[in-house]
């Protein structure tokens, strides 16, 4: 199936690994226009195929790998791809966006995406070359860690072709093979970490996927695209965040800022400051261990660090890993974190969920709930714990199921730091309540990015009052929708930090920056209006927001800021509409009671997340019922009336199945909901 739009290869393959049948997945230009690509495209595919009865570990579950229309066009930071599936960890749909080069090579192979169903009887390596799929036996690779597995793939491709083959790779490690619920898919050094996509790939008996080819991405307006890209690269390189802080320090640079703001999760989120933070912060990493900065293909930001572990250059840890495996478990040994980060990547496990699950287990033992031998600050045998988790041995077999599962078994839900089963990142939301809302309502579970990343304004880059709930729900909706579409277009979310004009970031004490920060909590109604009527924004925003123009030049679709924004809304609501099928309601948009009921600073009631009142405003701004269900009116307004499930939803609303009020008290309602 071809396409009239540029930016796309016009072909999506459906691969049944049970029958080894390969067919073209029907994906129309109308769907391209509505869902653009990436996670949004994947959500539509999952929504069309999954029923409420589908189980994560079943032949019916799909592993959907998609690219966006900007991938392969030379747009900055656009070599990405997305993996979506029904998550075994959260039991709702998950999406994981990954850098590296696989997205670029999938397009070189002539494809916009892969839809994988079934389960192979034997270990499999899928090689996609110029649109053709080769099913290779991977029995000899099964059991390999992710580094050796990727090396083996290069060697086999070189042996088959008589020379090295440029390719993009996806592999799982032992964790994915053993269905650790938070196992990841690894691509070079980059990781599709969240939601357990690696476990689904492992269950399907797929060890690896490689892509290669010589196809070219056709751009609708190549000259304009080229000129825009040139300006865009220049702008990103000049911005204080994307051109200075991230290249110099990577995400690790946030540790110190979070510490100062009381936002650094410490001892399983008991506290927001870690006394030894200077031993495990980004500055120390850069000064003592960083060898070289790296970036993904076409990325001017170059946020990745390379460090040395046992004399070998390996990927350095991100902020989340530093925070959660540092203060999170009261560990001040940075060298140990570097080593663990490498080990977890080799085993193919999400560092956030692994670390947070470990912290829960340490606290459960401290409270006498689970005698597991783990303790805060005692980290000598941690490497063995990783192996035990990956191979599901001993207590590792239980740790492999994540903090939600453990809390259901041993108790302590109030300190199992997850939302909808997905563990939170290292940002402590009691000192950034907008982020707290984002964590709770995020479609994929406790994710700072899918949650809208309000903390950027709440102390990291700007000084919007982190404790006020005012204006935050509307701002969260706006950020979520924009980030949703940046991701769907195939671009790295880090480019969104440049939405804020440089003076707002580099001059925090200037009158205009202070005025902006003061204004955010009081402009909620204005933002609500824009959220309700994105079509009003029928223009492009020059210099700082290039995404809409880039999509227009790449695809030839009519596109402006408002249409881009609306597409993000459509995608976010679609994901929620699908999750509704799996039972997600207001009560599930929750946080552990530690974060909503216990002030971080004793006696200061403001230092907890006032979640319920923010949720009420948030659902209203979204056009969902107060029980967090998108209404037929909202679905229709967003162009989702064509969904097969739309009629069912209308009928369910007519039958009164979905009420415009909460169906049950939120788990995190606590004091404020009482």
């Amino acid at each position, binding site marked *: 199936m071809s396409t009239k739009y540029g930016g796309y290869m016009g072909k999506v393959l459906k691969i049944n690994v049970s029958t080894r049948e390969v067919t073209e997945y029907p994906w129309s230009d109308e769907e391209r226009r509505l869902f653009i690509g990436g996670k949004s495209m994947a959500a539509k595919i999952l929504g069309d195929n999954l029923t409420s009865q589908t189980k994560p570990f079943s032949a019916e579950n799909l592993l959907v790998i998609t690219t966006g229309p900007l991938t392969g066009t030379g747009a900055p930071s656009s070599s990405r791809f997305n993996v979506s599936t029904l998550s075994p960890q959260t039991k709702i749909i998950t999406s994981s966006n990954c850098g590296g080069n696989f997205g670029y090579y999938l397009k070189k192979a002539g494809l916009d995406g892969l839809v994988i169903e079934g389960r192979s009887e034997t270990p499999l390596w899928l090689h996609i070359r110029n649109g053709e799929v080769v099913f290779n036996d991977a029995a000899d690779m099964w059991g390999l860690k992710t580094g050796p597995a990727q090396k083996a793939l290069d060697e086999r491709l070189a042996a088959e072709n008589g020379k090295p083959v440029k390719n993009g790779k996806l592999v799982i490690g032992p964790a994915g093979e053993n269905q650790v619920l938070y196992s990841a898919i690894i691509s070079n050094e980059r990781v599709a970490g969240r939601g357990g996509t690696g476990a689904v790939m492992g269950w399907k008996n797929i060890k690896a996927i490689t892509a290669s080819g010589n196809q070219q991405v056709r751009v609708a307006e190549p000259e304009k695209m080229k000129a825009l890209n040139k300006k865009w690269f220049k702008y990103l390189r000049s911005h204080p965040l994307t051109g200075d*802080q991230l290249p110099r320090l990577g995400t690790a640079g946030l540790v110190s800022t979070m510490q100062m703001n009381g936002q650094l999760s410490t001892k399983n989120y008991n506290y927001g400051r870690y006394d030894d933070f200077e031993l495990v912060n980004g500055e120390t990493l850069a000064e003592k261990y960083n060898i070289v900065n790296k970036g993904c293909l076409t990325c001017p930001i170059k946020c990745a660090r390379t460090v040395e572990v046992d004399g070998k250059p390996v990927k350095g840890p991100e902020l989340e890993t530093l925070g959660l495996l540092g203060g999170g478990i009261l560990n001040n040994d940075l060298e140990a974190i570097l080593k663990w980060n490498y080990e977890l990547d080799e085993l193919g496990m999400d560092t956030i969920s692994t670390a947070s699950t470990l912290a829960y287990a340490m606290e459960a033992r401290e409270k006498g709930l689970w005698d597991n031998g783990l303790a805060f600050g005692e980290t000598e045998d941690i490497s063995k714990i990783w192996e035990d988790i990956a191979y599901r041995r001993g207590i590792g077999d239980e740790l492999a199921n994540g903090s939600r599962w453990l809390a259901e078994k041993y108790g302590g839900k109030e300190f199992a730091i997850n939302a909808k089963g997905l563990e939170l990142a290292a940002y402590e939301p009691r000192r950034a309540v907008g982020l707290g809302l984002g964590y709770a309502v995020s479609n994929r579970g406790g994710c700072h990015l899918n949650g809208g990343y309000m903390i950027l304004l709440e102390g990291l*880059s700007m000084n919007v009052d982190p404790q006020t709930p005012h204006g935050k729900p509307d701002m969260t909706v706006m950020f979520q929708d924009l980030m949703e579409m940046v991701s769907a277009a195939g671009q790295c979310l880090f480019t969104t930090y440049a939405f804020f004009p440089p003076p707002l970031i580099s001059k925090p*004490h200037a009158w205009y920056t202070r005025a902006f920060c003061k204004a955010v909590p009081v402009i909620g109604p204005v933002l609500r209006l824009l959220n309700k009527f994105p079509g009003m924004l029928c223009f492009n925003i020059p210099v700082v927001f290039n995404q809409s123009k880039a999509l227009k030049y790449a695809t030839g679709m009519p596109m402006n800021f408002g249409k881009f924004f609306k597409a993000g809304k459509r995608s976010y609501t679609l994901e929620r509409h699908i999750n509704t099928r799996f039972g997600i309601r207001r009560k599930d948009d929750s946080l552990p009671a530690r974060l909503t009921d216990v002030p971080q600073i004793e006696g200061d009631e403001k230092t907890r997340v006032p979640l319920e009142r923010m949720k009420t405003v948030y659902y209203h701004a979204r056009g969902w019922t107060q029980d967090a269900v998108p209404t037929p009116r909202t679905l229709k307004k967003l162009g989702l009336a064509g969904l097969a499930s739309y009629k069912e939803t209308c009928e369910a609303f007519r039958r009164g199945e979905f009420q415009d009020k909460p169906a049950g008290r939120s788990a995190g309602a606590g004091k404020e909901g009482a």
Partner: protein
Amino acid sequence: MVTIKLFGSLRLKTGFKEMQAYASSVSEACALLARATGHDKKEFKNCLFVINGKQGKYSSALAEGDELVLMSPSGGG
């Protein structure tokens, strides 16, 4: 005597980490840093200030034993 610490990209740019100095205000501390590092005072003036764990201003006063932290803005996780 106050303790002055620098975090963020400006620390890597200047190579400056920490020093003990006599400074009665944040602005004076910024001037000291500019002299010590050879960098423009404006660069320090545009940092975020934290005095003993609480947000400060360029005009904030410093007292004996205070810890002043300067951070350049950050984002991206």
